[in-house]
């Protein structure tokens, strides 16, 4: 296990180092699919240059990073490449912990296995299969072209992903304090990880054997504890940011920017063209609708998946990546890294071939249609917009497919794998 992992790390580092030194690095760091106004490296350098000139980086509309990023890069701007190369490996730590997690789950199933029908045993995973999951997760993340592009472009999305991965690692390990602090840091970086509070809470409750019952005091006791850690760390981090530049300018520049979407630079998301073509008097309404759209799946999903918080985390991260205001391929790579953890769902996936074709085709067409619009002038913005729509549609299909497969497997675990109708013939399963 250690040897293949080391080999994988060496290969990943080599690819990134080669690309950093080649002329492709300049090209990749300007691609709009890989960087957005929120996390472009060019803007970080610009912010630092403004600070050197004596002007606050938040006085213009170029810099939208949080003050802690200024702290970090002020000292490491010359070693930026190393910082960005190290960050994906945090996601590896996550993968190393998926194995014990599954062991935990297996124990849980072992306790309840007498409740399962006999024919479901093939649905449960053997330890041998689960042994290779961490390696597969690491491979899916480190060798994913999206991750490599994001790392070579030095987009701070990689750092955000690292924080989220560390948060998941601490949650799975069971340390509520660290998990709360890291979640606060992730929320501070971009607001959307706020929705990960619910799955983390559910995981801890499950781990501590506290039933999720609104009337039980033990539930409220733990919830308040965790909320206190989270909110407290958030307040402390925000206060530290205030003291860096001595003003609250960063709040409208960072969070106001994320919520009100003033910059319409094209990216792989749905927001830019929608708000470029929006009638002025509907703008506020649709901003609210689109932002609420990211947050409001939390409660229904938490209710449905309260027994399965790890899958809930995956779903939440996927929803954030698809519906956030400035998505990049780095965000997509984060939830794709989880997919090997659910490889046992493969037999229930219905659209996987279609989805993979759509995603591959769109990834290939993005640079082509961008070039035709911006450089050749023979296409217009509609072409790029269409591929954006298709890419997001493919992602939605992927996520809902995995959700379907997960629910179906749970159903089979309870009711048996080979179902029969009343008259004894083979049954089909539908959603009703």
């Amino acid at each position: 296990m250690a040897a293949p992992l080391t080999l994988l790390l060496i290969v990943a580092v080599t690819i990134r180092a080669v690309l950093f030194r080649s002329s492709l690095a300049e090209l990749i760091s300007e691609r709009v699919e890989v960087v957005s106004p929120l996390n472009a490296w060019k803007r970080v350098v610009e912010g630092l240059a403004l600070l050197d000139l004596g002007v606050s980086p938040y006085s213009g509309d170029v810099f939208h990073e949080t003050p802690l990023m200024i702290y970090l890069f002020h000292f490491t701007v010359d070693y930026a490449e190393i910082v960005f190369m190290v960050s994906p490996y945090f996601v590896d730590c996550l993968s190393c912990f998926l194995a014990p997690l599954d062991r935990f789950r297996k124990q849980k199933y072992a306790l309840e296995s007498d409740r399962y029908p006999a024919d479901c045993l093939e649905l449960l995973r053997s330890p041998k299969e689960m042994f290779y999951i961490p390696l597969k997760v690491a491979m899916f993340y480190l060798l994913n072209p999206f991750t490599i592009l994001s790392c070579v472009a030095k987009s701070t999305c990689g750092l955000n992903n690292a924080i989220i991965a560390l948060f998941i690692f601490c949650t799975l390990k069971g340390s509520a304090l660290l998990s709360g602090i890291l979640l606060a840091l992730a929320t501070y970086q971009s607001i959307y990880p706020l929705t990960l509070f619910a799955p983390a809470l559910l995981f801890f409750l499950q781990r501590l054997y506290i039933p999720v019952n609104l009337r039980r005091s033990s539930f409220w006791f733990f919830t308040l504890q965790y909320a206190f850690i989270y909110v407290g760390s958030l307040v402390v981090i925000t206060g530290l940011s205030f003291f860096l530049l001595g003003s609250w300018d960063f709040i409208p520049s960072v969070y106001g920017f994320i919520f009100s979407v003033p910059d319409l630079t094209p990216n792989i998301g749905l927001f830019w063209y929608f708000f470029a073509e929006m009638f002025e008097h509907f703008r506020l309404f649709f901003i609210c609708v689109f932002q609420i759209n990211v947050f409001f799946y939390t409660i229904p999903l938490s209710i449905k998946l309260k027994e399965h918080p790890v899958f809930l985390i995956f779903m939440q991260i996927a929803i954030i990546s698809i519906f956030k205001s400035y998505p990049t391929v780095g965000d997509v790579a984060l939830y794709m890294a989880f997919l090997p953890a659910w490889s046992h769902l493969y037999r229930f996936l219905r659209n996987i071939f279609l989805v993979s074709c759509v995603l591959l085709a769109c990834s290939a067409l993005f640079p082509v249609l961008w070039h035709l619009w911006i450089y050749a002038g023979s296409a217009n913005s509609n072409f790029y917009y269409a591929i954006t729509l298709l890419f997001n549609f493919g992602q939605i299909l992927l996520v809902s497919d995995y959700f379907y497969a997960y629910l179906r497997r749970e159903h089979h675990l309870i009711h048996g794998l080979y179902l029969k109708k009343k008259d004894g013939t083979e049954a089909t399963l539908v959603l009703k």
Partner: protein
Amino acid sequence: MAAHRCGLSLVCILIFSTPAPAPARDQFQEELVIRPLHSGDIYASFQFRTLWDTDFLQERQKKVSHYRLFPKSLGQVLSKFSVRELHISFTQGFWRTMQWGQPFIPSPPGAELWVWFHHTVSDVDGNWKELTNVLSGIFCASLNFIDMTNTVQPSASFKPLGLGNATDHRFLRYATLPREIVCTENLTPWKKLLPCGSKAGLAVLMKSEKLFHSSFHSQAVHIRPICQDEQCTSKAWELRQTLNVVFDHYTSGQGKKEWSLFKMFSRTLTEACPLASSSKVYVDITDNPELSPATHLLSRAVVLGDRRTYSVYDLTRAETFGQLRSFNLLLRWKGDNMLRPLLHAERYVAGFGLQTGEIHTVIYNNHPYRAFPVLLMDSVPWYLQLYVHTLTVTSKSRDNKPSYIHYQPAKDRHRPHLLEMLIQLPPHSMTEVTVQFERALLKWTEYTPDPNHGFYVGSSVVSALVPSMVAMSTNFTQDQPLFSSFVPVKEESSYFVRVYTEPLLVNLPTPDFSMPYNVICLTCTVVAVGYGSFYNLLTRTFQVDEPSPPLAKRLANFIRRIRGVPLLA
């Protein structure tokens, strides 16, 4: 009794009659300078100056109500908005410094307005907005397009040209409209501001069909408070209206280096303006052109670092007009000498595609041995996002770090970028200033009706004190010609020059303007697909699919239930 009453009334008259206030002195001067250019073009510069001994801004004094030579519309504007200095210019064409030398009064293409407000003004932005709208009405120009997205507050480039000790740049506002077109509609109200209108004096020459058929046309109004004497014991308000025009050698001159007033303006002069205290025509004869009618009056002046000789024609004297009561000047020259301008600047956009680009400003210092500093001011609209970390200044292919940089980044849809730098130019060199920018995608309502024409970026301003090869005169005399007294000369060895570069035309990526409804529908469809799939999976559960029995069977079962008989399977 009658005498007593008379005496009483006399006393009453003496007590109650207030001494009549001394009328404020005002005077009007007009002049025309004609300078032949070496390329065969001819440069004519009109200046009309009104000096008035009054104070628009003082509250103690009664509000000014009796206007004689000074135009009432401008006087009211000055008092209402507490304006200390106002400079507005409308220019059609671009001044070609390398071919024509330095102009007497530089101006950028389009409209330019810069105003110093009095330090008692509390809401400068509000005053600025109202002022631009009022001026827009006075000059029939679309100055109402000046708003906070194209106004800047330069910190060093536009110091007051008149009196002024307070130089807090919070009271300065500068804006240009490079897209503004100048035509007869703007000339007519400008001419109306003159005391004699266009009926007498030099203004009769200003006919639009000839003035706009030229390479360069610029009309300006400059208002500022000045000292009336060396010790500055009395102050006065000065209104200068200037009109600079360059007639083209080939289109107006028929290819001959032979010009006359009639050929330039299709009019001749018949009389001076009766309200003018001085009315003169100066012709630059330094390169010895043939001039008729001849005159003995000569004037030597050092202007723009060059000693020039002028023939003077005094229009207030009747003998200038001769027997025909009309004055037509004839000018013929052959020479090709021209003083090479010491400071010259160019600007262009580099790069390809609609995503990024680079602005290159090239400044030439043609002085053979002296280096001097220049102040470069750039105001770039917000939709071209400048990256100041890519700013490079190179002279003679070596890095030249500016000693002073003032950068105010743009706020989207609120204010433009302002970049001011003090650069030291080495002698006889070319300095290149480069900065990269990214083009933004705007909302579909923010594009002009012809979006593929492009967006204009206003000219850069290069201001410098250029070392002079000839000693300038710092003496203050009342009868100095107007063209040499516009910019106050503070020292002998240098003169102030302001050079404007070309405006830029930049294309931005455009969305498809026919698509708003389609885009809303399609994007909402994709979001709804996501919502629908999640809704299905969240609210429904898996069930074994029992097909519902066909209609006949269901009907049969229904009847059986009524009869109380066992149902079918």
